[in-house]
């Protein structure tokens, strides 16, 4: 299985340079380096620094994707410079030149170095990132269920590189948003059975206008994370626990929106948009529209409704009366709601913990040739 050795090649780099102390505007700087294609973008930057310009600013340490120091943007996507192969980077470059910029959403200190303290670390501190325990500390270790610890290891895998913060689209328009890295860290403690402040943590994050309900569900952080932490997924779990387990009705309409949406689907099978707005603001029932908050929002929506009706995008009947799926189907849909929601505990599949059926099969199949190991049968697997 030895890989075929590929000799060094030339790679062109286009680096974003900026020195705030110089008084000059940022500019692009191009260098050609010579390295084997499997080498990393970080090695290329370091070669450019060593051979051509000692003033290139880059932060790095471990060079093996564990310290989280060398977060940059490579060809418009956040990445660890040490974890990005040169051949792959060239393949994704627009014009064959690998473009390297500092991360986004954080001020640039110099060239590729951003101020992590000003943004990322401040936000991490915001979520009280340590265990709060009121019980007396046990003499030996804490005994906790294995599953609950496996579950939080996903967020513990975070190396604080800031890649998710760099490209967070909610933070781009609302810099005060607590953001994906810090909220993933918050889940690390909300999911930890040893922590005694779950309720206070969740209430805090739900009530903060820039907390869990400020996430715009764009999957950018999921894509950005080099460690598979799935920050957005953790934010959704924080929301689920806040509403379903802690019954937190927040001032940001988060709980009401969720209740209004699911309630409308239960009632009609498909969404009734005209009702979603007043119920999200005023309360998850038909009476929601009479709440002052709903009234205010409905007033603010008059221009939208005016044009919508004028252009026959909306009809008066459509606004006043919902679309519904056929009644026999609606009955089945409601039966599903009743069955699932009446379970004493939510039934969830966490693919991070369980993996994929195929994941189990593959290594076994490849081991057959080597050791003649029998193929493991997987109970209940699909035909």
């Amino acid at each position, binding site marked *: 299985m030895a890989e075929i050795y590929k000799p060094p090649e030339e790679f062109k780099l286009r680096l974003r340079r900026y020195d705030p102390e110089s008084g000059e505007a940022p500019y692009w700087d191009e260098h050609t380096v010579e390295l084997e294609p499997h080498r990393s973008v970080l090695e290329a930057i370091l070669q450019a620094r060593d051979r051509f310009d000692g003033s290139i600013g880059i932060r790095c340490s471990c060079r093996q994707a564990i310290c989280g120091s060398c977060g940059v943007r490579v060809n418009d996507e956040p990445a660890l410079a040490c974890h990005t192969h040169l051949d792959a980077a060239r393949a994704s470059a627009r014009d064959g030149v690998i473009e390297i910029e500092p991360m986004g959403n954080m001020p640039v200190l110099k060239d590729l170095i951003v101020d992590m303290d000003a943004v990322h670390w401040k936000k991490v501190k915001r979520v009280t990132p340590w265990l709060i325990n009121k019980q007396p500390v046990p003499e030996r270790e804490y005994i906790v269920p294995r599953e609950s610890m496996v579950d939080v290891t996903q967020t513990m895998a975070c190396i604080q590189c800031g890649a998710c913060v760099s490209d967070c689209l909610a933070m781009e328009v609302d810099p005060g948003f607590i953001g994906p890295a810090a909220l993933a860290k918050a889940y690390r403690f909300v999911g930890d059975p040893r922590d005694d402040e779950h309720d206070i943590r969740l209430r805090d994050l739900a009530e903060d206008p820039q907390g869990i309900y400020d996430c715009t*569900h764009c999957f950018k952080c999921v894509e950005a994370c080099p460690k598979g932490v799935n920050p957005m997924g953790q934010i959704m779990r924080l929301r689920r626990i806040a509403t379903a387990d802690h019954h937190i009705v927040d001032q940001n309409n988060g709980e009401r929106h969720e209740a209004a949406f699911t309630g409308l*689907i239960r009632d009609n099978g*498909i969404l009734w948009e005209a009702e979603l707005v007043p119920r999200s603001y005023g309360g998850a029932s038909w009476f929601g529209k009479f709440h002052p908050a709903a009234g205010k929002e409905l007033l603010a929506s008059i221009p939208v409704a005016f*044009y919508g009706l004028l*252009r026959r995008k909306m009809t008066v009947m459509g606004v006043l009366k919902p679309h519904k799926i056929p009644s026999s189907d609606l009955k089945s849909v409601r039966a599903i709601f009743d069955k699932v929601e009446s379970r004493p505990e939510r039934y969830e599949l966490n693919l991070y913990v369980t993996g994929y059926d195929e994941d189990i099969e593959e290594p076994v199949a490849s081991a057959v040739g080597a050791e003649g190991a029998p193929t493991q049968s997987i109970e209940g697997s699909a035909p």
Partner: protein
Amino acid sequence: MKVAYWPGCVSRGFTPELHGSMAKVAPLLDIELVELDRACCSGAGVIAEHNQELADTLNARTFALAQQVQGAELMMNICSTCQGAQSECQERLDANAEYRAHVNANLAGEGLSYEKGLTNKNFLWLLVEEIGLDTLSAKVKRPLTNLKVGPFYGCYIVRPRDRLGIDAEHPRDHYLHQVIDTLGGTVIEYAGMRKCCGFPIIMMNKEASLKQAGRHLGDAVDAEADCLVTPCPLCHLNLDLQQPIAEKVVGRELQMPVLHLPQLVGLALGLEPRELGLSRHVVRPTSVIDWSTSVVGAAA
């Protein structure tokens, strides 16, 4: 080709012109639509946020109904958000046989069952992968010559790449570019084309939500696009329906028409703007209508 057709909620609600234009365009592309009118909302991520098993069961029901459509080659949707939400549920259902059996047990009352391996494609994917750009090109009656179109993908159809099957062989995050190009239009690239429209937080943080929509529209204005095109009706709500308010939030005039994908395709296939429901947009697609009656558009 025959497809089990999932139109979603919003295409039958606040963006009726999307559902209508799809119905007009389908026969021109030899697509037979068998509408899944018994199916319910995909949950748009919100039901999954509330209860994962519930979202997975409701979508498994939709998938099972799609698998019952005789002779259908696959399931097709016209809503990126449905594509994203359904792909997420399908990933879990397909990944674990035990979980699939558990969810199918919730459907047993109706005699329905989802079998692993459904193909569910947004109209955009179907256009490129099933119909093919060559066939599409041959059907063009009114090439979009000189029409500058900005693609607006939305989030749910481009991220996460693994789950959505985006790779070198299936560059699905470039398909809008390819379609605009095939229809004879000019692709206008701008900063926001794969960013979030802001719709998911419109009830929670309206200002941040419309700042997103307003910025992307402004970027497209600066890049001198005549119009945008999107495969997502929820993006359309924020970009078109809310545009007058987004203008106030970002403090600039925008007036950027936003077309649904079937409308743009229909225009190139020779349908008239009115038939495609272009008169139903909040921001009048004057540039597009003027183009269709211009020397270039009318000559075609």
